[in-house]
């Protein structure tokens, strides 16, 4: 699992690639710290190369979502593969984020 963070025209973008599962969660929690630190900004998560997500991963995204909500920022998630999207739907997480 890799998270690549970049600036793009004032938007902070995080590109996720691989499996965001239990084994990857601890490292992802560290890697996403720059996003947490910038939770007052607009954050775009590109999930085109995200192949799997479990509750461990959802938990971290919810943490980020709570931070942006409390700090005045927001999150947009884009290019979510169909199988991954259904995990968001099953758990009700689909309504917690803005998807494009």
């Amino acid at each position, binding site marked *: 699992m890799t998270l690549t963070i970049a600036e793009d025209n004032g938007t902070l973008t995080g590109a996720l690639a691989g499996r965001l*599962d*239990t*084994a990857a969660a601890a490292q992802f929690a560290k890697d996403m710290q720059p996003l947490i630190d910038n939770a007052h900004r607009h954050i775009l998560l590109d999930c085109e190369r995200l192949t*799997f997500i*479990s*509750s461990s991963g*959802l*938990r971290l995204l919810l943490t980020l979502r*709570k931070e942006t909500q409390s700090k005045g920022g927001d999150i947009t998630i884009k290019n979510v593969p169909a199988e991954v999207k259904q995990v968001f739907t099953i758990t*009700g997480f689909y309504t917690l984020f803005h998807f494009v």
Partner: protein
Amino acid sequence: MERQLTLYNRVEELSRLTEFVEQLCDELSLDAVLSFNLNLVLEEAVTNVVNYAYPPGEEHTLTLKAQAEGDMLTFILRDQGKPFDPVAQAPDVDTTLPASERPIGGLGIYIIKQIMDEVSYQYLDGSNELTMKKKISQQQQTETTDTE
């Protein structure tokens, strides 16, 4: 058809679980969506055992048995950790809550129940036993053609 996997209660072992499930799904010619969902269910179930069944630092094993009979796929996850019935004791999940009110945890067993057709638990001979069943329809098995 029956397959069995024994794992240690370590997060690092989950990659072996992934391989096991992928191989099983391949043998049964299950489609990508069902394979993904079974991978998810078993990751959630095994993660709960790894994280909660035993005191921290203790090394133990857990076993996962997979049985395919007719159109029913059954997984039985067994561990000798502290007695815990996830079916009865897992907290209710309110998926309609806004982000600020959603608790951070508690999704694992909920996901399992949403995806599998039957989920049951028993404590038998000193072991927690979680049984998860999924009916496999014809559409969920991809067509295989023999080519020469």
